[in-house]
């Protein structure tokens, strides 16, 4: 090799990654930049686009009350889902971290919902389960509780959608499970000998030990929540009374129903800005609460 950075061996390596490289440039990088340009245009895909500067952004912030409803729904959804999913996955991971008979089966069962991912089929299933005559109300009625309009009541629709997201906690759970295995047993034993009870051991050993994974899960779940589209679109179409009209649904409706691609692109850049802001804040705060094993 001797410093020849473009040797035959390297060229072959580049060839191997070329398909991915082409894919990311064509389907991600180019649309990423062109969408910013479109966000500065009055752009109907069936006609020529006209450059209007920051007109779409000004309209979004000053003349579109729907935008604020969408923003509120998106942020509320994020606030509902991220902590709940995190706690749920950690709690189940702690439970499954103990050696017992049939633990492998239990782990698989708890992971199953995540195998379905954010699929249309799961969203349709959720809808069927939570409609007024659905299975969940059937259970409630069985225990003498009157029907709850999970999808028709504007106050209930967003929490119901959040529940769908929280239910799919399997991926985070698996990561927590792996992280828990990495925490040295010797630390627990020493703490036990020093008289630390289980709660203290959890907060002073377990949580710091798995903090990099908590950090990663918070980032990933926040990104997913802010981008949510499928459940809001399939289960409630953004309703009722726009209570689940998340930014992803607004973006879709503006772009593909009303053909305002420039306006939709501006919305997507606002989503991007929000996500970036959250990410930067989390990274900035991480130095105070995330601990890496290799830190000196």
């Amino acid at each position: 090799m001797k410093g020849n950075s473009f040797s035959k061996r390297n060229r072959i390596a580049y060839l191997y990654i070329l398909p991915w490289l082409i894919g990311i440039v064509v389907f991600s990088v180019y649309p990423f930049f062109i969408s910013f340009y479109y966000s500065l245009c009055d752009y109907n895909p069936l006609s020529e686009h006209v450059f209007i500067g920051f007109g779409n952004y000004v309209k979004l912030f000053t003349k579109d009350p729907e935008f604020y409803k969408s923003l509120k729904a998106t942020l509320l959804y994020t606030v509902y889902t991220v902590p709940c999913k995190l706690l749920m996955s950690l709690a189940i991971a702690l439970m499954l971290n103990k050696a017992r008979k049939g633990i492998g089966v239990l782990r698989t069962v708890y992971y199953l919902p995540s195998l379905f991912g954010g699929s249309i089929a799961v969203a349709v299933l959720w809808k069927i389960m939570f409609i007024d005559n659905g299975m969940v109300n059937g259970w409630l009625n069985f225990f003498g509780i009157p029907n709850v309009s999970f999808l028709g009541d504007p106050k209930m629709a967003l929490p119901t959608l959040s529940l769908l997201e929280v239910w799919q906690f399997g991926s985070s759970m698996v990561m927590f499970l792996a992280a828990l295995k990495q925490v040295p047993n010797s630390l627990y034993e020493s703490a036990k000998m020093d008289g630390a009870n289980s709660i203290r051991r959890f907060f002073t050993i377990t949580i710091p030990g798995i903090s990099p994974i908590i950090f990663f899960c918070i980032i990933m779940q926040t990104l997913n929540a802010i981008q949510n589209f499928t459940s809001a679109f399939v289960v409630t179409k953004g309703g009722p009374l726009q209570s689940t009209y998340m930014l992803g649904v607004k973006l879709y409706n503006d772009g593909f129903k009303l053909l305002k691609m420039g306006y939709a692109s501006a919305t997507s850049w606002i989503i991007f800005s929000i996500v970036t802001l959250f990410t930067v804040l989390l990274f900035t705060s991480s130095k105070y609460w995330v601990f890496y094993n290799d830190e000196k």
Partner: protein
Amino acid sequence: MKSWKKAWALILSMVMVISLVAGCGSSQSPTPTGPATETPTEAPTETPAPTTTESTSAGDEKITLRFSWWGGDARHEATLAVIDAFMKKYPNIKIEPEYGAQDGYNDKKTTEFSTKTAPDIFQIETGAGPEYAKMGVLYNLSALKSINFDKFDANFIKVNGQFGTGNQYAIPTGVAGSALIVNKTLADKIGIDLTQQYDWEKLIEWGEQVQAYDPELYLLSVNTGNGVAFFIRTYTRQLNGVPMIDDAKKTLNMTEEQFTEIFDLIDRLYKSKTCAPAAYKAPYHPNKDQEDPNWINGKYVASVGYTSNVQVLMEANPNVEYIAGCMPLLPDRKSDGWVNNCPQFMGIYAETKHPEEAALFLDFFFNTEEAAKLLGTVRSVPPTAFAQKIVAEDGSLHKMTAEAVERSLSYSGFDDGGLTTSAEATKILEEAYEAVSYGSMTPAEAAKDVVEKLNSFLATQ
């Protein structure tokens, strides 16, 4: 080490974020259906031109056309059978079917138009027809020699598919209209006669009668989607005799007071529980009462919808007797307001490379006995007299569908089309309808909101 890890994590996060934004704005990426199929031979492809005359249907050139539609299983099976029959007759033309549910169909089409990947032949939602014609995505069928419209009633096809241009841009797939499908067994028990003409106020009187009989029953099953068409647009036409929006002047034909009058009626319909609660109906798709357990269990006296839904609604609860009910009229109306048009259109994509072959298929689809027999009434009552005769003779014409169409045709209504049924105007009306039906806006507030938003929309047209 720590900072190196963080830098990588930040970069990876950014890549994921980029993938979010990348999903929007580009019209360059191909849609999953792929581009329009080209001919595998060396024959030059034709560009859309109104004077195209060379049909290659009888030649050796192999041609592939894409054809998309939406519907249920019965419609899919019948349409696929017609495609097979056509391909047997014209072995050099291959039809690739693309079919599914109606949900999202229109959105997919507009995306395909923007990426120039729309199918050669496609079914069109009735309300979207004029908008598509305005977009310039429909081929001028009058310029094609491979299809003729002799079997259609001249006035019917002029009103349905020419969009005021004098040229045929789309073909109506059947005869259809608004319908009130009545559970006669239940109506008789409560003592309601929907076979006699009545006015809008009578609906509320009957609604209260139904509630007094049993609070779990409702006179009407309607949700936001079809409520806008049934109550707002129809009432508008009855009030003024014209569509809500004047397309030529880009102005509203309605006053705020008139909108208040309509929203007041809607408000009273829901407060009196004449209509099933909005919160209950919200998760159900418009025109799909067959999925609503209340309909299946016979808890609605009538379902608001279209003649094309009759058969499926009856099959959802076959234990009761049905009739096509009369629909409400204003005593001092300027028009009956009720729509008699077609359930869908068929059209040819303006950018197709094979307009004559596509027209040949549509000619086979609409003008041959073989296709008429195969299609039966899967798209409501057929649009031509000869096909109607065939389905009447072979017994496939659904009796209640025919009755509902007849009832609908007894009203001298017209279709709005144009800006009145555009996606943005519809969204504005749906939001207001929903707000009033939930009681989160007063009729006056909803009227003010609608006028402001519609005027704002018209200012951009």
